[in-house]
């Protein structure tokens, strides 16, 4: 064990972060659904625009986080943007993880030429910074949700593939795999029922840690105007919308930024704790550590 002194905290940071994420997921589903007004409708701009947090507009409606320059309620828009961010993060990282697991399992199980080709492809994509690949992707296809997801998956599977490949090779050498093969199990069954379940732990952790990264990348592209296009709200394009209001209405850029940081932080804390908890188990069975 790494910790030199026992943990005294009864609640781990990981469970707090997980609770926060669950709460956020509920909020992004419920808040826009229960909102009194349509979050993208613009009406009576002069009466409603740039109301500070906790303030009331000229119609007497209270806005918990204030309004933007078009008089739209920031909380509702932020939660609507949160739907998109969480969706992009979970699907982007999840599908990347799935593709990476399949590629890594295939490469580690079959070895030979296939292994060399697949890992060569991974090296190739890893030679370009991910943001550069993303930018090239949105440059060649039209910006939007589908493009972002496709490009996130295309540029996100390599890390997991390498991890799973290494694990599969390590697990394949262990006696129970030989035993399963000797008992006449088909190679596919050995791979999916015996090897992969013992090799997939690090892939789950890496995928969890990838969620925050995917959310950050999506918001970055949207901030640059190359991702989710307004009027659809994304945390990135909401921050971009508050860029020239930093002095007069700082809350417009502050609120979505805080939501973004809190979400990415929570996913990385959950991922870190998961890794730390499985690290001991992995070390015991001699697997490669993350």
């Amino acid at each position, binding site marked *: 064990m*790494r910790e030199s002194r026992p943990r005294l905290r009864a609640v781990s940071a990981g469970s707090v972060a997980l609770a926060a994420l669950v709460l956020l997921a509920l909020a992004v589903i419920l808040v826009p659904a229960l909102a009194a007004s349509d979050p993208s409708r613009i009406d009576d701009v002069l009466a409603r625009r740039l109301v500070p947090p906790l303030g009331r507009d000229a119609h007497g409606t209270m806005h918990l986080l204030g309004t933007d320059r078009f008089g739209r309620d920031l909380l509702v828009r932020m939660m609507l943007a949160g739907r998109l961010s969480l969706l992009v993060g979970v699907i982007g990282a999840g599908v990347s993880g799935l593709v990476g697991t399949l590629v890594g399992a295939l490469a580690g199980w079959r070895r030979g030429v296939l292994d060399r080709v697949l890992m060569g492809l991974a090296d190739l994509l890893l030679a370009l910074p991910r943001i550069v690949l993303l930018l090239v992707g949105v*440059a*060649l296809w039209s910006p939007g949700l589908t493009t972002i997801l496709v490009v996130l998956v295309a540029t996100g599977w390599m890390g997991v593939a390498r991890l799973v490949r290494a694990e599969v090779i390590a697990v394949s050498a262990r006696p129970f795999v030989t035993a399963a093969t000797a008992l006449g199990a088909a190679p596919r069954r050995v791979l999916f029922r015996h090897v992969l379940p013992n090799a997939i732990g690090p892939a789950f952790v890496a995928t969890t840690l990838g969620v925050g990264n995917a959310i950050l990348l999506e918001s*970055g592209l949207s901030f640059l105007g*190359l991702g989710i296009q307004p009027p659809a709200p994304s945390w990135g394009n909401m921050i971009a919308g508050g860029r020239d209001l930093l002095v007069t209405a700082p809350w417009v850029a502050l609120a979505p930024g805080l939501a973004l940081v809190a979400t990415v932080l929570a996913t990385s804390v959950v991922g870190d704790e998961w890794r730390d908890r499985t690290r001991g188990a992995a070390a015991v069975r001699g697997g490669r550590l993350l």
Partner: protein
Amino acid sequence: MLSPAVARSIGVAGAVVRTAVLYWCVLSLTFVLLRVAPGDPATFLLPPDASAADAVRLRATLGLEQPVTAQYARWTRRMLHGDLGTSFSEGRPVVAVLRDALPVSLALGGASLLLSFLVGTTVGIVQSARRGTYADFTLTIISVVLAASPAYWLGLGAIAVFTYVASLLSLPLWARLPAVGMTTPGADLHGLAHLADLLRHSVLPVTLLAAIGAAGVARYVRTSALDVLDADWVRTARAKGLPERAVLGRHLLANMRASLVTLFALALPGTVAGSVFVETIFGWPGMGRLMVTSIMARDYPVVLGSAAVFALLVIVANLVAESLLPWADPRLRG
């Protein structure tokens, strides 16, 4: 048997060849990407106001009627001559456009990378030496939050604080930092005055990029330092009465050289990603901003040219790190 020195040179030469092949594949990827993108490459490569006749002419020049293999051979020949095409928006060769932008990014990224390594390594080692204390806890929180924060958002915050708020509170002039550009526009400064102006403009972008980088470096260094400090021979060093400073300064650092070399190669893509946003926010005419503006302008030759330069940077950094590893860790000398 080969002497170790010869074997090592062969190893390095092999790494260089492998790197060159890899880089060629990356460049070919840009060729492939333009062709798998929906639509005719000619329409991508033409400015929006081009006529149908222009398209026909370009298709002939590009040899798009020829078979793909012939096109690839032609493209290869041009690449080997260092011809990356002509920028649509500027009408200049892409190579010239890149030559203007690259030094800006190298200066910004280099300074930030250096700072982030100095600060991050120090912080990480202090944390590992004071493991479990409040100082360790606080620094961990700071670095985790920084690592989760988007550079552009922190940049906007920094601009708000150091320009508007600073002048609002009528803070002294040194605390009010310029937010945009590398130099004061219109000011015809020379020598030291020019340098001072440049430095003032660098404070915010470099600090921001370095802070984000340092957060990552500190987390990594703390983890690998703890791995080293848990080793048996550290206990031996302490047991024989070696002062803690010697344990950290000699034993720990010597054993972390390899980790730091690896981290350097790992940190470079992060710096590139950060510089895309930092250059955009602070209006620095570097590679990152060039890439964003050329995407906005649909200037594909420049987009692909900058991607090629970024890939070259990362690949060379990996090659350097790989060749330095045997120096950093004698256990890796085969």
